[in-house]
C-alpha cells in the first residue's frame, strides 16, 4: 500500500504509455540517472555560476540564438535529480512540495535537447570558467534517457543493428568482402585477413566502407610501402560504437567487448581506429571504463600511426599539392584527445599551401554531425544550422579544398557545402598521403632513420 502520491502518479503514467516506452520506464530512467551521479557531477552543478559562456561556445546555440540550447540547460533532468535527491536544500524543498517533478513530460521535452542539439563536441567543457565538464554530463544524462525510453529512433535502430549485425548501418562481412576484392584488384596488393600475430588490427567504420572505399585502399598501400604488418578481423571490423552515442554503457560494453575479443584472438599488440572521431574516443577512452578492464593492447587513431611512421622515416613521399588547403579537426580527435600536431605534420609532408582556420586544434568548431546527431533524422535541420558556424570559418579563409580525418565529419562537410553551393571538395588525409607515396620503393625497413627513432 503506497501513500506516496508521486509514486502512484508515476506508475500510472508509465503504464498508460506502456507500449510507447517498451520495457523502459520513468523509474528505470531515474535509477539510471542516480547511478550516474558522482562527486564531480555534484560539484559541477553546485559550481555553475550561470555565466552563459557555454552558450557562446555551442554551435547549436550560436547559430540558432535559442536560449534552450544553452549547454548547461540541456542537463536539466540530471540537475533536478541532483538537487532533489542529493542536496539538503532540495530534499527540504521536495518535502515541502516546492520542487518540480522529473516526469515523462519533462524527459520528452528534453529529448531533442540532449540528442538533436548536442554533438558532444566538448567545446562547452573547454570554455567553462569553473571547469564543468558539460559534454560528459550530457553523456551521463543520455543513460537516463535510454532507460526511460526517451531516445531517438534513429539511434535505437543503429544500436540494435550494431549489436545484431555487427554494424550500425547493418553491413555484414560479405559487403566488406566485395570491397576487399575491388581494393585487391585495383592495387595488386593482398588485404590480410585474420592474420594471427600481426602488429596492427585495423578497424573500419561502416560509413567509410559505404561512402569512402578509397580509405581501405589507401591503408593497404601505405602499410605495404612502410612494411607494416597488419590485419582485418572477420569477427569484428566495425570500430564505431552506437552504445556510446545513444548513451548506454551496457550496449557500449557489448560492442567494445567484441573488439577486445577479436584483438585477443589474433594476439595483436595494437588496434587502429579508422578515420572516425567518435570511434576513437569510444574505443580508446571510454572502452576500458565500460568493460571495467585494461586492454592487453594499445589503441591508436590512424593519423597517430601515420605520423609515427613519418617520424620513423618510413613514409617516403614525392610531389606536393599546390592548391590552397585547409583542415577540419574532428572534435573527438583534436579537442577531446589532443591529437592536433600529428595531422599538421602530415600535411607539411604533402601540401605547399596549407592554411589553418582561425579557431583550430582544441578551439575548432564542430561540424555539427557528431554525437549521434547524424544518425537521428529528426535532427537534420539543427545539424545544418550548426554547420553554419563551420561554414563561416571556411568562408573566412576560402580554401580550394578541405582535408579531414573522420568519415562523419567528411560526410557532413560535403553535404553542408553542397547545401550552400560552395564548391570545395573534401578529402580524407590518409588518402591524400597514399597518393604521394614514392612508387615501387622496396619495403623500407632499411630506409634512412631519423635520430631518436627505434631502429
Amino acid at each position, binding site marked *: 500500500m503506497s501513500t506516496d502520491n508521486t509514486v502512484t502518479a508515476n506508475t500510472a503514467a508509465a503504464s498508460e504509455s506502456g507500449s510507447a*516506452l*517498451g*520495457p*523502459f520506464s520513468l523509474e*528505470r530512467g531515474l*535509477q*539510471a540517472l*542516480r*547511478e550516474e*551521479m*558522482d*562527486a*564531480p557531477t*555534484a*560539484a559541477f552543478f*553546485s*559550481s555553475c*555560476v*550561470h*555565466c*552563459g*559562456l557555454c552558450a*557562446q561556445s555551442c554551435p547549436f546555440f550560436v547559430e540558432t540564438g535559442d536560449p534552450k540550447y544553452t549547454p548547461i540547460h540541456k542537463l536539466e533532468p540530471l540537475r533536478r535529480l541532483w538537487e532533489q*535527491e*542529493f*542536496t*539538503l536544500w532540495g530534499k527540504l524543498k521536495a518535502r515541502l512540495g516546492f520542487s518540480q517533478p522529473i516526469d515523462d513530460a519533462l524527459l520528452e521535452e528534453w529529448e531533442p535537447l540532449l540528442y538533436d542539439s548536442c554533438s558532444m563536441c566538448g567545446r562547452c567543457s573547454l570554455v567553462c*570558467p*569553473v*571547469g564543468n565538464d558539460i559534454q560528459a554530463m550530457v553523456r551521463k544524462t543520455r543513460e537516463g534517457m*535510454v*532507460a526511460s*525510453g526517451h531516445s531517438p*529512433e534513429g539511434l*535505437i*535502430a543503429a*544500436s*540494435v543493428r*550494431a*549489436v*545484431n549485425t555487427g554494424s550500425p548501418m547493418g553491413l555484414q562481412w560479405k559487403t566488406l568482402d566485395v570491397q576487399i576484392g575491388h581494393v585487391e584488384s585495383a592495387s595488386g596488393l593482398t588485404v590480410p585477413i585474420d592474420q594471427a600475430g600481426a602488429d596492427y588490427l585495423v578497424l573500419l567504420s561502416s560509413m567509410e566502407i559505404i561512402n569512402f572505399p578509397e580509405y581501405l585502399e589507401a591503408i593497404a598501400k601505405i602499410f605495404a610501402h612502410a612494411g607494416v604488418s597488419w590485419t582485418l578481423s572477420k569477427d569484428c571490423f566495425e570500430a564505431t560504437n552506437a552504445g556510446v552515442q545513444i548513451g*548506454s554503457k*551496457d*550496449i557500449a560494453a*557489448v560492442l567494445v567487448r567484441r573488439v577486445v575479443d577479436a584483438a585477443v584472438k589474433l594476439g595483436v599488440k595494437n588496434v587502429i581506429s579508422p578515420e572516425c572521431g567518435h570511434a576513437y574516443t569510444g574505443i580508446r577512452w571510454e572502452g576500458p571504463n565500460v568493460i571495467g578492464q585494461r586492454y592487453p593492447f594499445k589503441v591508436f587513431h590512424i593519423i597517430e600511426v601515420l605520423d609515427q611512421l613519418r617520424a620513423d622515416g618510413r613514409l617516403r613521399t614525392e610531389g606536393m599539392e599546390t592548391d590552397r588547403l585547409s583542415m577540419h579537426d574532428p572534435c573527438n580527435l583534436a579537442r577531446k584527445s589532443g591529437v592536433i600536431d600529428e595531422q599538421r605534420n602530415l600535411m607539411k609532408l604533402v601540401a605547399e599551401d596549407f592554411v589553418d582556420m582561425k579557431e583550430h586544434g582544441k578551439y575548432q568548431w564542430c561540424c555539427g554531425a557528431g554525437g549521434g546527431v547524424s544518425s537521428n533524422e529528426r535532427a537534420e535541420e539543427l545539424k545544418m544550422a550548426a554547420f553554419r558556424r563551420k561554414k563561416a570559418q571556411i568562408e573566412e579563409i576560402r580554401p580550394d579544398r578541405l582535408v579531414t580525418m573522420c568519415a562523419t565529419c567528411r560526410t557532413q562537410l560535403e553535404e553542408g557545402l553542397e547545401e550552400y553551393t560552395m564548391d570545395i571538395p573534401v578529402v580524407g588525409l590518409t588518402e591524400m598521403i597514399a597518393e604521394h607515396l614514392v612508387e615501387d620503393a622496396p619495403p623500407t625497413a632499411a630506409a634512412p632513420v631519423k635520430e631518436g627513432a627505434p631502429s
Partner: protein
Amino acid sequence: MTLGETLERNGISRRGFLKFCVTTASLMALPPTAATAIAEALASARRPSVIWLSFQECTGCTESLTRSFAPTLENLILETISLDYHHTLQAAAGEAAELAREQAMHANEGKYLLVVDGSLPGPGSNPGYSTIAGISNLQMLEETVAGAAAVVAVGTCAAFGGLPVADPNPTGAVPVSAVVRDKPVINVSGCPPLPMVITGVLAHYLTFGKLPELDEYGRPLAFFGQSIHDRCYRRPFYDKGRFAETFDDEGAKKGWCLYRLGCKGPMAYNACATMKWNGGTSWPIESGHPCLGCSEPDFWDAGGFYKALSVPTGNIGGTAAVAGLAGVAAGAVGGYLSGRAKKDARTAHRQVTADELEQKL
C-alpha cells in the same frame, strides 16, 4: 573628463577596456549582454567623488588595491574616480588635507561614495586610541557619512572588526556597520580583499546607479555567494576523504585536501578560488596552504589557523558559527547520502539490451 577619456589618455585600448567589462559582468554573474551596459556607463561616467577614510588598519587593503599588480585597469579605474581624500595616497598634508575632505563633502553633498578601511574605537571606548588631525575616528566617520550616498567597508577590519576586535579587543573596536545605521553599508571583507571585488562593486554602482545584491553579512553576493570549499579544485579529494596530514607528507605532495591542516574553506565565503591572486597567478590553497577564512567575522579567534575546522567563539560570530556548523553537517550528510544512493542504484541496475531496444522500434 569622463572615465573613457581618461583611460584612453592612459593608453588603455577600447578592447582592453571591454575585456575588463566582460570580466566584471561575468564575475558578477550578469548575462554577457550586461558587459555592453557596463562599458557604456563606465566610459561616460563623470569621475564620481570618493572619500576614503583609514582607521585602525594596517594599510594592507590599500596595498592590495593599488599595488598588487600595477599598473592594471583596476587601479587606473580607482585612480580615475575622483579620490578626493585618501590618507595614504594623497599628496596634501595637514590642514590642506582636511580642507580637501571638507570641500569634497560640500561639493558632492549626498552623492559621494565613502570608502572606509579599518575598524574604529566604538562609542563607549576611549576615542584617543585612534585619531586623525586631532579628530576621533568616530567623529570623522559620523561627519563624513552624513552626506554620503553609501559606504563601502573595505577589508575585514572595517567590515567585521578584524584584528583590532580580536580577543581581548583592547581598543573597544567596532566595525563600520556598528556605527552607520541610516546609510547602506557594503562589506567587502577579506584580509585583504581581492582588488577586483572592490572595482566590481564600484563598476556596478556606476553602471546601475544602485548597489549590488548583498548577503546577510552585507557582502556582495556575486563575490561572496559561494564558499571557497564549493569552488576549490581540491574538492574531489575532500569528497573522497583524501587529506594531507602534514605539510610535507605524500598527501601534501599529491595535492590532497587541506582540511585536516586547518583549512577554513568550508566556512569561508570569498572569490579566491575563482579569481585567484596577483593577477590570477595562484591562491593560497593552490600554493599548498589552507584557507584562513579571512573574509569571515572573527576569523582571528576561530581557534587556530592550523586546527581542523573549528568555529569562531566570539559573540558577533554566533551566527557564523551556526552557519559554519550547518555547512559542515550538510556536506557530511550530502556525502553520505550520495554514497548510499549510488550504491543502491548500482545494485538495482537493469541491463539495457538490444532486444529491449528493439521492442521500441
